[in-house]
């Protein structure tokens, strides 16, 4: 599957509406422009689909449940084709009963199965959050290790486009707060596949925060990542772009924004190092510290609200560690605006961090 038209496929599948959107898509695809042997372009959606498919083939105890995952092929078509392949027993459509089906999923994990519990969005998981925290996350500890809960909770998290306040919240910091949970958030297709496979194989509750807007984006996947046993380690961040002047840390969709901002800044002679967290809990503090000790400046970027957010946690951790002495300026957080998400396009655009906000923050932090 040689991809001569990869530029175009990327553009077509990426419904960006922000200013400079088209340009940014081309830009980040260009980062992967050095064509390597056996790299293919895969959408995040397909990568997730592959991960679920492979893990279900590998282990009979793995099954998927959620609303519309079976006969509808998934609300966002992530589970396309799986019901045809595996049938009713292993791909289960549930009624609209988050608290009920999440409890059922957790109970089945306690009794030996390995469920993948899909939420149509994590906004709806709020109804089931008692089961995620109290029934799943805390149980191994409360039982002194007698009762493990090998379950994956996955679904889209954070803002989409025009879906307004009740459908746009980012839950990364909520879940990352709780011991007993692991929380991952992929950006690229490799991230999505490798992290989900690792999550399924993990004997503990893992929350996988995907992003609806990334489902249609294509990324190159290495040959290694096409193997059925390709897993990414949970708890390890990835340096997506090496740099020397400043460190940008982000997760999920905003990694793309950081990469775009870095490309623009490169033209002005500012060399950014971009870190893709991949895992929110446990946070890979060493990676960030190593980078900060090299660049002396740090900007965190996230879509969620500022108070008690992921950026706030990174600031605290940096201050508590050796990297603090290497900072030439305080850490800057770029976050979503501290309001419920509005509907109108112009308002929504100005509620989420844009590339220009990242560029502005970088320059301020570097005092240029």
């Amino acid at each position, binding site marked *: 599957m040689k991809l001569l038209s990869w530029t175009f496929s990327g553009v077509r599948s990426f419904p960006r509406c922000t200013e400079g959107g088209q340009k940014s898509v081309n830009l980040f695809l260009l980062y992967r422009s050095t064509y390597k042997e056996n790299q293919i372009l895969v959408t995040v959606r397909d990568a997730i689909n592959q991960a679920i498919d492979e893990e279900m083939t590998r282990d009979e105890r793995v099954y998927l449940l959620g609303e519309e995952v079976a006969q509808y092929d998934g609300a966002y078509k992530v589970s396309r084709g799986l019901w045809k392949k595996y049938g009713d027993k292993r791909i289960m459509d549930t009624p609209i009963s988050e608290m*009920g089906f999440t409890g*059922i999923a957790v109970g089945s994990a306690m009794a030996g199965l390995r469920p993948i519990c899909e939420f149509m969005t994590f906004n709806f998981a709020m109804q089931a959050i008692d*089961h995620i925290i109290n029934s799943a996350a805390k149980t*191994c500890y409360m*039982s002194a290790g*007698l*009762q493990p*809960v090998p379950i994956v909770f996955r679904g889209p998290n954070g803002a989409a486009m025009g879906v307004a306040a009740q459908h746009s919240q980012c839950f990364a910091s909520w879940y990352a707060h709780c011991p007993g949970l692991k929380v991952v958030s992929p950006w690229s297709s490799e991230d999505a596949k490798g992290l989900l496979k690792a999550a399924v194989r993990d*004997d503990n509750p893992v929350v996988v925060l995907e992003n609806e807007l990334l489902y249609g984006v294509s990324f190159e996947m290495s040959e290694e990542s096409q193997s059925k046993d390709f897993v990414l380690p949970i708890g390890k961040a990835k340096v997506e772009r090496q740099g020397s002047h400043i460190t940008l840390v982000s997760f999920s969709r905003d990694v793309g924004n950081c990469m775009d901002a870095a490309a623009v800044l490169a033209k002005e002679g500012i060399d950014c190092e971009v870190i893709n967290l991949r895992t929110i809990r*446990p946070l890979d503090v060493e990676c960030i510290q190593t980078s900060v000790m090299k660049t002396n400046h740090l900007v965190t970027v996230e879509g969620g609200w500022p108070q008690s957010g992921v950026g706030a946690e990174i600031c605290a951790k940096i201050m508590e560690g050796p990297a603090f002495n290497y900072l030439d300026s305080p850490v800057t957080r770029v976050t979503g605006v501290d309001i419920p998400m509005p509907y109108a396009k112009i308002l929504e655009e100005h509620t989420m961090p844009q590339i220009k906000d990242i560029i502005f923050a970088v320059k301020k932090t570097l005092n240029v």
Partner: protein
Amino acid sequence: MCDRATFITIIIIKRGAVAGFRAVFGGREEEEGPDVESQGRTERRSDTGQGATSEKMLTNISNLLRACAHRHVSTETVVSARTYADFTTQATFEIKKCDVHKLDEAPATQVVMTRDEGLQYYRVMQLMRRMELKADQLYKQKIIRGFCHLYDGQEACAVGIEAAINPTDHLITSYRAHGYTYTRGGTVKEILAELTGRRGGIAKGKGGSMHMYCKNFYGGNGIVGAQVPLGAGVALACKYQGKNELCVCLYGDGAANQGQIFETYNMAALWKLPVIFICENNRYGMGTSVERAAASTDYYKRGEFIPGLRVDGMDVLCVREATRFAADHCRSGKGPIIMELQTYRYHGHSMSDPGISYRTREEVQEVRSKSDPISNLKDRMLSNNMASVEELKEIDVDVRKEIEDAAQFATTDPEPPLEELCNHIFSNNPEVAVRGTNPWSKLKSVS
């Protein structure tokens, strides 16, 4: 003299010298009565039926007088002649009929109980009762802290259910879980040590009263009603894995109004999950009586499209029979079924609730005297010649000793070591660092 004497076990007694004399000198009367106490001697039956010697008469009269001074109220006398070889090995009992919902059949009303079964049920219920009372005592001594929800009064439920399911079946319940932890395989030592927060506890002191686990027993759950979808999930795993196992999923009359339970009813029925939903209706959700909490107190009907049974939860045989019926229903692939056990708790909701602000002492006393599951089983066995008073007393003594030993262990076992503080956050995981109360406090978690 003794070899020709008659071996008689005299069971005495309460009201009236007349009745007593009738017992000693008269014929045999078979009567039931709670709180019967043995006062007699055993003597071998002989053919000649020689009259009592004066020595024996004096003994009997003294026994009688002792009995008449006894406080407990009861009915008349029972005199039966027996040896251990003479005990009835099994008997048939008439039990209360269950109310049914969406069912054409009901559990049997004539049930057989063997002597061995009876002794076992008696022992386990008595042990549970004593264990809970010991927990009460330890709590008042401040050796147990936090939550402590006691199960005394409801023993017939746990014992009856366990008698009707297999050890390979599964069970999950609410926070009032000490009894079930025992019937599912925990030892009294482990349970009491968990309550006192020691390293020998069933959850190594990490869980406490509400978070006890053992094989095929999923706790002990602190969030009211959360155990219901979890139980259906266990049943889903049973069905998925095709092992013909089922899950018994218990909740109270208070939890019965939780929304997630209705979500669970829907999915369990839709997917025909092998789950027995059991509502232990002890008439009060904490301090709120059922009439004040539920628009419909027919908890066995609340599953609407799920068949239901209403069962006398104070009778261990009723519970056993109904659970057998329900288990057959599940195992035959018909899907879920609901049982409502009408039961009662003697203690308040928890140790911080005296339990008499929302109900009268008289009510509690009445249930204790008329419907106590242990007393009623005891009466059944004695009046059907299935056990002797001494035998049951021996069991009581043995139980008391077991509880004392366990309490001794639970109060002397050391607390968990601080090195264990962060362990078991994860299962099957490499060692992780855990942040302590300050940045320099670097703790470790091993799984």
